[in-house]
């Protein structure tokens, strides 16, 4: 049952997520019928589930909420701001009590009581009395004991002719009844007038049932609960009389059956009265005719003729479960990814071995395995990717709450929610994005009045946009607020000692200072954002994901933050290069172009700039940086130009080997403090190639340039 409970909690969380999305769009468009329906439906399901799992506290709570939306749905109430706020507060509360259904946390208990009051107040305002929920246990049978003493019950059961049409089977009801005790079942079959026009779907049979039992009458009525609407049923009780054991009664009944089609209640009452005397004088009653008594038990009756033709095929039954999706623990997915990456590595060595040996049979096998492992890789990747939409929903709420707190009017637009990202990336990304959005709302957007003065629409816009580019995903947060004033940042950077007053920096380089630890431009620190601890953490988080972040801004036009992320962390397409016979991998996603230059071009170079395609490109000489012997001036080097969101840097290497699908493995904690290498991969021959961290290299280089400028 614990597993069931886990399903319940998981589903409840999903339902609540849906609820939030619907509520927020309701806020934008309160008259949207489909959203109200959706809210109602989600609440209804949540209530049903909660009561099924015996969580009466939650079920009752949701029931009251649901009442409001039911009224709105029916047009008996109108959706007010107050209702929405209460619902959202209730939503937050539900999120907590889903795991605390007994309200053991005193805070939850207090909240619960308050919210219930608020909800009831809302319902009362509209003059609607909340109906109590039916979450009590299934009604127990009346506790009526007859001290084990039997009495006789007569049931007259006469189904309508249409009784069989909805798939009801009267025989099953009769079987149920006969299990309560000793019984006589008397069927009455209406005559079939013409066999040619006979309609087998019509129910032409009715029954009289005599039952000697001690079960309460309600339990007997309960048997016919589905039949009540399409049959006439009467149940009469003859206390303290055991008729079925009585021979005279049996005889009388058989006589009645032969003479009349239906046994009326009066007749039986009459009979019982007579028998009341008869029982007392039973000593004198003859029992000679007992063997003649013929009781029609239902087994003998050929009701099959009028039984509807319910299609039940007899072919062998295959146990079939239809599942549209399954839940897999993320540990298992990670393990799958791990195995796939091992397979990719193993397959690389097979390919290499095959290249050396040139056995045609082996080549076929090797190529097949390569194809299969590639497909397997793609499928495994597909499983770990989740649409970014899931995350967008949360921000909607954030924007709403924050803008309310700040008295700002905000329109939140999302675009590209279908873009998929690795689930682990999405998890890590949520906090940084939240921080950026908070910043945009707090520092970016102006108050409605200010905006109007500037000739902007009162409502500010914050746009969250995601899209693919190559094998990277871009996420942009765009606002149309006041923008960042480069001059302000500049002054601040100088006052904090991040730069010298005479340094000449581009606006982009200046904007980069907002990612420096301890840098905050907000004059007033608010609750919402801005203690100067935010943006550096944002940048660090994104860098950890091998992503890059870039700010663009224009005063009074707005700010755009662009985050670029690799699609997956563990397997990358790389460019295999070598420097002094050591292999390195450069992620193919950042490689812009490759050039061949003579070494002397780099040697006689003071500002470390190369002119490539008529453009100056700064470069890093790996041989120099890594302390290898420099090549002679006449030898040629390869320059690989890599770029992040904005900047371009050339990396000089000895040779380019080719493309390589690299399974990136961490290199361990002893190497974590260096800036060039982000991981390692195993090549087909078992040797190791180090994966260059292009973003860190670009950063490092930029610092290098700054250092030069300062000195």
């Amino acid at each position, binding site marked *: 049952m614990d597993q069931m409970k886990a399903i319940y909690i998981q*589903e409840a969380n999903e339902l609540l997520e849906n609820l939030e999305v619907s509520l927020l769009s309701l806020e934008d468009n309160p008259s949207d019928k489909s959203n109200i329906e959706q809210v109602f439906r989600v609440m209804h399901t949540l209530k049903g589930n909660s009561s099924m799992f015996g969580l009466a506290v939650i079920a009752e709570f949701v029931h009251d909420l649901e009442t409001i939306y039911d009224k709105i749905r029916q047009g008996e109430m109108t959706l007010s701001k107050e209702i929405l706020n209460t619902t959202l507060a209730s939503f937050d509360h539900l999120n907590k009590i889903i795991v605390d259904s007994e309200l053991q946390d005193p805070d939850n208990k207090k909240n619960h009581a308050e919210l219930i009051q608020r909800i009831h107040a809302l319902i009362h305002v509209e003059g609607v009395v909340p109906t109590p929920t039916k979450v009590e*246990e*299934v009604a127990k049978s009346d506790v009526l004991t007859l001290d084990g003493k039997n009495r006789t019950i007569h049931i007259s059961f006469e189904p309508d002719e249409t009784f069989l049409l909805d798939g009801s089977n009267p025989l099953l009801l009769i079987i149920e009844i006969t299990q309560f005790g000793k019984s006589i079942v008397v069927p009455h079959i209406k005559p079939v007038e013409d066999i040619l026009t006979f309609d087998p779907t019509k129910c032409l049979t009715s029954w009289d049932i005599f039952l000697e039992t001690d079960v309460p009458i309600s339990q007997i009525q309960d048997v016919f609960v589905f039949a009540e609407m399409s049959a006439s049923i009467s149940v009469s009780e003859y206390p303290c009389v055991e008729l079925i054991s009585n021979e005279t009664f049996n005889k009388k009944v058989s006589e009645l059956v032969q003479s009349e089609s239906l046994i009326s209640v009066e007749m039986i009452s009459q009979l019982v009265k007579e028998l009341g005397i008869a029982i007392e004088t039973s000593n004198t009653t003859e029992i000679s005719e007992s063997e003649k008594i013929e009781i029609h038990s239902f087994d003998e009756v050929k009701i099959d003729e009028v039984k509807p033709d319910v299609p039940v095929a007899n072919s062998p039954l295959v146990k079939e479960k239809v599942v549209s999706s399954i839940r897999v623990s993320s540990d298992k997915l990670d393990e799958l990814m791990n195995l796939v990456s091992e397979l990719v590595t193993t397959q690389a060595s097979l390919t290499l071995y095959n290249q050396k040996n040139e056995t045609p049979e082996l080549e076929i096998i090797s190529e097949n395995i390569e194809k299969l492992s590639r497909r397997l890789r793609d499928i495994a990747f597909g499983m770990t990717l989740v649409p970014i939409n899931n995350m967008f929903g949360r921000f909607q709420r954030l924007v709403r709450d924050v803008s309310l707190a700040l008295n700002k009017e905000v329109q939140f637009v999302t675009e590209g929610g279908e873009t998929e990202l690795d689930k682990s990336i999405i998890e890590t990304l949520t906090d940084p994005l939240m921080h950026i959005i908070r910043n945009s709302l707090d520092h970016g957007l102006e108050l409605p009045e200010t905006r109007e003065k500037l000739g902007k629409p009162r409502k500010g816009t914050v746009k969250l946009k995601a899209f693919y580019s190559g094998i990277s995903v871009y996420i942009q947060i765009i606002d149309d607020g006041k923008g960042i004033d480069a001059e302000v940042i500049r002054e601040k950077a100088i006052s904090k000692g991040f730069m010298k007053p005479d340094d000449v920096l581009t606006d982009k380089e200046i904007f980069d200072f907002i990612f420096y630890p301890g840098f905050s431009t907000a004059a007033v620190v608010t609750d919402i954002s801005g203690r100067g601890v935010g943006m550096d953490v944002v940048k660090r988080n994104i860098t950890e994901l091998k992503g890059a972040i870039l700010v663009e801004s224009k005063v009074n036009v707005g700010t755009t933050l662009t985050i670029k992320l690799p699609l997956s962390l563990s397997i990358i397409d790389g460019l295999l290069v070598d420097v002094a016979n050591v292999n390195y991998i450069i992620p193919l996603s950042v490689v812009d172009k490759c050039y061949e230059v003579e070494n002397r071009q780099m040697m006689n170079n003071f500002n470390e700039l190369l002119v490539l395609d008529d453009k100056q490109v700064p470069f890093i000489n790996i041989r120099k940086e890594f302390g290898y012997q420099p090549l002679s001036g006449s030898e040629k080097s390869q320059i690989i130009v890599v770029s992040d969101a904005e900047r371009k840097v050339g990396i000089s290497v000895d040779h380019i080997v080719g493309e390589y699908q690299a399974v990136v493995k961490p290199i361990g904690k002893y190497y974590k403090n260096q800036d060039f290498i982000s991981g390692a991969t195993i090549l087909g021959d078992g040797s190791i190639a180090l994966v260059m961290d292009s973003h860190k290299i670009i950063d490092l280089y930029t610092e290098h340039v700054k250092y030069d400028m300062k000195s």
Partner: protein
Amino acid sequence: MAKTILIADDSESIRAVVGFALREAGYDVIVANDGQHALDLLNQNDQVSLIVSDLNMPVKDGITFLKDVRSLDKFKYLPFIILTTESQETKKMEAKQSGATGWIIKPFVKEKLIAVIKKVIR
């Protein structure tokens, strides 16, 4: 031969609980997320002996699903039980008039579920 029961409910929790109870009672179970899904499954599978369906479902609600089932000659008389939290008579009446064989009101205990099923199929 175990009988097959088709469960239609948009709530995974309910599907899990009902499915568990029915499998335990020896039935085979097919599950669907909504009325349309259920109808598609029913058309693919002629071994279904009973349908247990929620009323409030997305895409296609229980009553519409029931009416669709009844409109098909093949399933005209297939036992159909409504599973719902609506305890109001109106919903039950509507379902019954649309051709439902019976109903189960949530919340219910396993024994009650099986008892109701036994009323409808052997």
